[in-house]
C-alpha cells in the first residue's frame, strides 16, 4: 500500500472508531490481543526462561570470581602504594570527623567568621534556642554549643589529590548496591581499565569486601571539598529540624528555596533501581517540585497562601496539625521578559562522556536556544583539562552558528572547573548590560578535580559577581560521581538556583515550559519569618529547609542572603504544629521580606492565620494540601526522618493513587505514584538483606 493510502486508511480507521461505543473495546480486539499475548507467553515460555536464568547465574559466578580476584590484587597494590598516606588519612579522619560535624552545622559557607550555635535546630545565636534533641542520625550528633569559624582554613585541608584518587578506588563502602555501583565507577577511573559489568553481579562481592562505612566511592579522582566529612562528599546531611517549643522560640525564619534538584536526583536513583542515600533527600525540594496551582497575584509581587488541617504522621504522634504556607510570585509573560545575556560554562571533561551526559547537555541547550529570542545573547566557555573561551557572546540572530558551536563540543581530559568558571565570569562581565538578565549557567556533573578544588574559592568569585548582578544557575547532569553538595551550594551563593536534569523531559520542563521563570528573577533575598502565637501553638517543626535556616534576628538584615524567586515560581513550606487544647485566635503571623529584583527596594508584608481557618479534618482539606502532605511524607520516609517513625509507604502510596485521579492532567503526580511504588518495592527488598544501618562509622577507626 502506498504511504498516502496508508495514512488515509489509518485516519479513517481512527475516525470511524469514534462513532462506536465509547467504553468497551470490540470483542474482536479483545480476542486478538488475548491470543497474541497467549502466543507470546508460549514462545517465551517458562522453560526457556529458567534455562536463561541458570545460564546467567553461572556467568554471574564467573564474573564475581573474576571481580573478587582483581579486587584483592588491586587492594594489595593500593595498600602498598598508599601505606604512608593511609596512615596520614587515618590520623586526619579523626579531625575530619570533628570538622564534618562542624560542617553539618553551617547553613552557608560564609567568607566572614560567623558564630553559630549548634544544635539540630540551628536556631543560631538565640540563647534559648533549640532544645537539644539529639539526632537519630549518627553523623549528626552535635548538640552542644560550639563556636564555629566558617572559615575554610580552620577545617582540615583537602588531602593531596593523587593518593586520594587511588584510595578512592578501594571498594570499602557498604552503602548498599548504589555504593557498589559507584564503587565500580570510581574504580574504573582510578585504574582506567575495568569494563563495566552488571551491577547485580557486583552486589555479591560485597560480603568479603565488607568494610566499615565511609569512603568516598563515587568521585573518580576528585578531592573532597574542604572540611567535608569524607563520607558526606556528594550529598551532605543537614540533619532534620526538631520540634521547637514556642516558649523557647516562637520565631521560625528561613530563606526560600525554589530548587528541585533533590527530587530529580532521587528519581534517577529510583529509576536505576536503587534507594537514594538519605542525605540526597531535601524535603523542601521534593515539595517544591510539584505544582499546587496557587493563583498568581495580579498587582503585588507575591502573595501568601495558608492552609492547615489535622494530620497524622505515621503512628507516633496524635493531635498534630499540618500547616502549609505557599508563596506565589507574579507571572511575567514571555513577551515582557527582559532580554537575557547568558554565559554557558560547560564541563567537557572526560567524566561528561559517561552516560552521554554531554549529549544531554547539548540537547538541553539546543532546546533552550530554540526558545530564546533574537535580542538575547549567548556566550560559551568550556573547561576540561584547561578552561577556555569557546564562543564570544552572539545575538540569537545567529542561531545557526550558536547551534554549530554547541554541536561541536567534545568531552575529554580532566576537570578544571575553577578556571572555566573564572573565564565564564570574565566573559559575562564584558557582556554585562544593565536592565538585562545577566546569568552564568554552569552545566556540570559537579566534579572539580584540578586546581584548588575546595568549593570555597569558586564560591568566593561567584558571590562577588552576584552582588554586581551576574547570577548563576547551576544545572547538574549525570550520576555516579555526581556532586550534589558542590552544585547546590554554588547555586545558592550565586543568587541563582540549582536544577538537576536527569532526562530530556526534565530539560523541557525547565527550558521550554517555564523558561521565563527560570531566567527572570522577581524577588531577591526572599526570607520568610513565621511568628507563632505561644498561647495557641505549643510547638512546631519546620519540615525541610534545614540548610536554609536564617537566624531570627537576621530577618530584617537586608545584607543577609535569602532565596531568589523567578517569575511565576512558588515556594511551599510545611510546618507540623501542636496546639494547646481548645484555644482560639491567631495561630501564626507570616512575614515575607524581599528585595525588588531591579530597584532593590525592600518590601515586607505579613499575613495572619487563625484557628478558625483550619480545616476540620484532613479529608476536608484541598487536594493540593493533600498532595503537599503526601510528598513530604514520602520524602521524610526516604530520608528516614526521626519524625517519620511508624509512617508506612503503603498509606502514602494509597493516598498518592487517590490524588493521581484528582490531578489527572499532571504527569508529575502520576509519576509520583510510580516512584512511591518503586521505593516500596526497593525497601522491601533491602529489608530482607542483612541490615547495615546499625553499623557505625567508628568501625573504620578501630585498629
Amino acid at each position, binding site marked *: 500500500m502506498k504511504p*498516502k*493510502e496508508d*495514512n*488515509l*486508511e*489509518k*485516519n*479513517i*480507521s*481512527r*475516525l*470511524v*472508531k*469514534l*462513532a*462506536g*461505543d*465509547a*467504553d*468497551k*473495546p*470490540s*470483542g*474482536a*480486539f*479483545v480476542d*486478538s*490481543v*488475548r491470543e*497474541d*499475548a*497467549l502466543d*507470546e*507467553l508460549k514462545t*517465551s515460555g517458562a522453560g526457556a*526462561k529458567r534455562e536463561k536464568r541458570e545460564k546467567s547465574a553461572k556467568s554471574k559466578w564467573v564474573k564475581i570470581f573474576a571481580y573478587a580476584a582483581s579486587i584483592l590484587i588491586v587492594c594489595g597494590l593500593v595498600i602498598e602504594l598508599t601505606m604512608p598516606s593511609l596512615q596520614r588519612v587515618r590520623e586526619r579522619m579523626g579531625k575530619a570527623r570533628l570538622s564534618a560535624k562542624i560542617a553539618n552545622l553551617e547553613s552557608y559557607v560564609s567568607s566572614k567568621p560567623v558564630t553559630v550555635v549548634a544544635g539540630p535546630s540551628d536556631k543560631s545565636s538565640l540563647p534559648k534556642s533549640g532544645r537539644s534533641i539529639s539526632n537519630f542520625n549518627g553523623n549528626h550528633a552535635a548538640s552542644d554549643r560550639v563556636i564555629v569559624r566558617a572559615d575554610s582554613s580552620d577545617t582540615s585541608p583537602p588531602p593531596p589529590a593523587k593518593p586520594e584518587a587511588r584510595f578512592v578506588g578501594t571498594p570499602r563502602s557498604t552503602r548498599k548496591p548504589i555504593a557498589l555501583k559507584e564503587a565500580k565507577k570510581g574504580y574504573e577511573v582510578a585504574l582506567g581499565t575495568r569494563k563495566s559489568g552488571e551491577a547485580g553481579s557486583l552486589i555479591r562481592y560485597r560480603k568479603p569486601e565488607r568494610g566499615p562505612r565511609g569512603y568516598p566511592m563515587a568521585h573518580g579522582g576528585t578531592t573532597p571539598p574542604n572540611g567535608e566529612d569524607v563520607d558526606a562528599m556528594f550529598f551532605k546531611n543537614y540533619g532534620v529540624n526538631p520540634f521547637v517549643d514556642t516558649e523557647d522560640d516562637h520565631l521560625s525564619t528561613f530563606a526560600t528555596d525554589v530548587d528541585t534538584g533533590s527530587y530529580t536526583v532521587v528519581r534517577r536513583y529510583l529509576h536505576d533501581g536503587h534507594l537514594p542515600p538519605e542525605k540526597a533527600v531535601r524535603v523542601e525540594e521534593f515539595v517544591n517540585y510539584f505544582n499546587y496551582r496557587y493563583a498568581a497575584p495580579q498587582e503585588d509581587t507575591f502573595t501568601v497562601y495558608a492552609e492547615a488541617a489535622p494530620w497524622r504522621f505515621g503512628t507516633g504522634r496524635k493531635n498534630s496539625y499540618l500547616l502549609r504556607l505557599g508563596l506565589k510570585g507574579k507571572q511575567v509573560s514571555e513577551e515582557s521578559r527582559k532580554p537575557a545575556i547568558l554565559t554557558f560554562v560547560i564541563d567537557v571533561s572526560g567524566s561528561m562522556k559517561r552516560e552521554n551526559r554531554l549529549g544531554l547537555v547539548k540537547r538541553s541547550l539546543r532546546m533552550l536556544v530554540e526558545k530564546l529570542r533574537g535580542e538575547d545573547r549567548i556566550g560559551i566557555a568550556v573547561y576540561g583539562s584547561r578552561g577556555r573561551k569557546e564562543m564570544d557572546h552572539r545575538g540569537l540572530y545567529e542561531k545557526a552558528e550558536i547551534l554549530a558551536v554547541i554541536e561541536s563540543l567534545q568531552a575529554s581530559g580532566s576537570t578544571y572547573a575553577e578556571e572555566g568558571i573564572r573565564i565564564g565570569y570574565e566573559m559575562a562581565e564584558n557582556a554585562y548590560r544593565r536592565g538585562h538578565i545577566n546569568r552564568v549557567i554552569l552545566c556540570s556533573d559537579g566534579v572539580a578535580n584540578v586546581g584548588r578544588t575546595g568549593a570555597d574559592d569558586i564560591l568566593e568569585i561567584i558571590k562577588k559577581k552576584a552582588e554586581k548582578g551576574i547570577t548563576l544557575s547551576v544545572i547538574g547532569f549525570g550520576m555516579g560521581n555526581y556532586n550534589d553538595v558542590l552544585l547546590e551550594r554554588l547555586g545558592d551563593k550565586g543568587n541563582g538556583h540549582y536544577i538537576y536534569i536527569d532526562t530530556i*523531559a526534565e530539560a*523541557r520542563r525547565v527550558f521550554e*515550559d517555564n523558561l521565563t521563570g527560570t531566567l527572570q528573577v522577581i524577588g531577591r533575598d526572599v526570607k520568610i519569618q513565621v511568628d507563632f502565637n505561644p498561647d495557641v501553638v505549643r510547638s512546631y517543626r519546620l519540615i525541610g529547609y534545614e540548610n536554609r535556616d536564617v537566624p531570627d534576628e537576621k530577618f530584617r538584615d537586608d545584607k543577609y542572603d535569602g532565596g531568589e524567586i523567578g517569575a511565576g515560581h512558588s515556594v511551599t513550606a510545611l510546618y507540623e504544629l501542636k496546639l494547646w487544647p481548645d484555644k482560639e485566635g491567631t495561630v501564626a503571623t507570616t512575614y515575607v521580606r524581599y528585595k525588588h529584583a531591579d530597584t532593590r527596594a525592600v518590601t515586607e508584608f505579613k499575613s495572619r492565620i487563625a484557628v478558625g481557618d483550619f480545616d476540620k479534618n484532613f479529608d476536608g482539606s484541598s487536594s493540593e494540601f493533600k498532595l503537599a502532605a503526601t510528598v513530604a511524607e514520602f520524602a521524610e520516609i526516604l530520608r528516614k526522618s526521626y519524625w517519620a517513625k511508624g509512617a508506612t509507604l503503603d498509606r502514602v502510596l494509597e493516598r498518592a493513587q487517590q490524588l*493521581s485521579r484528582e490531578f*489527572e492532567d499532571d*504527569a508529575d503526580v*502520576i*509519576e509520583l*505514584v*510510580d516512584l512511591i*511504588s518503586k521505593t*516500596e*518495592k526497593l525497601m*522491601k527488598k533491602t529489608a530482607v538483606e542483612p541490615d547495615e544501618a546499625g553499623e557505625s562509622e567508628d568501625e573504620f577507626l578501630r585498629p
Partner: protein
Amino acid sequence: MWREFLNREIPQLYGMFMRRWPNPSLAEELVQKTIFDAVRGCDSYEPTKGSPEEWIFGIARNNIRLEMRKRASRPSVDGDISSYVETIDSEPLPDEVLEQKETAAFVKAALAGLASKEQNVLRAKYIEDLSARDIGRRLGITEKAVHSLLYRARISLRRELERMAPADKKG
C-alpha cells in the same frame, strides 16, 4: 488462568485509558502495549506485593505517564477537525483532535451521509474489528470485493468530511 485474567482485564484497561483520553484507537494501542509489557515482564510480578490486577494497573499507569510525556513534547494543537480534513490523506491526525467532543459528532454526521452499504462495511471493519473474510461472509461477497468496497467507502467518507468542513467552519 491467563486467558481469564486477560478477558477480564482488557476491557478494564481499555476503560481506564478511554477515561483519560476518549480516543478508541489510542486506547487500543495502549491496551496492547500494556498487555505486552505485562506478558514480557511477567517474571517481575511478585504475589507478595499485591494482586495481579494492581500489578497490571501499575504497568498501565506507567504507560499513561509515558504517553503524557510524549504529549508534552509535541506542539499543542489548535483548531478542530475541519482544519485537518485537507491533510487527512497525507498526515496522521493529532490525537488531541480526535479527543475533541465535536470530532465524534462530526464523524457520526459524515457517516450518516454515506450509502448504507458503505456505512456498514466501515463499521464492521473499524468498530467491530472484523476481518475482511468475516465481513464478506456477512455481506455475501468475496474478500476481494470487501477490500474494494472498503476502499471506496474510505474515499466517500473523506469526501463527505471535506464537504462538511467548510460549512462547519462557517457555523
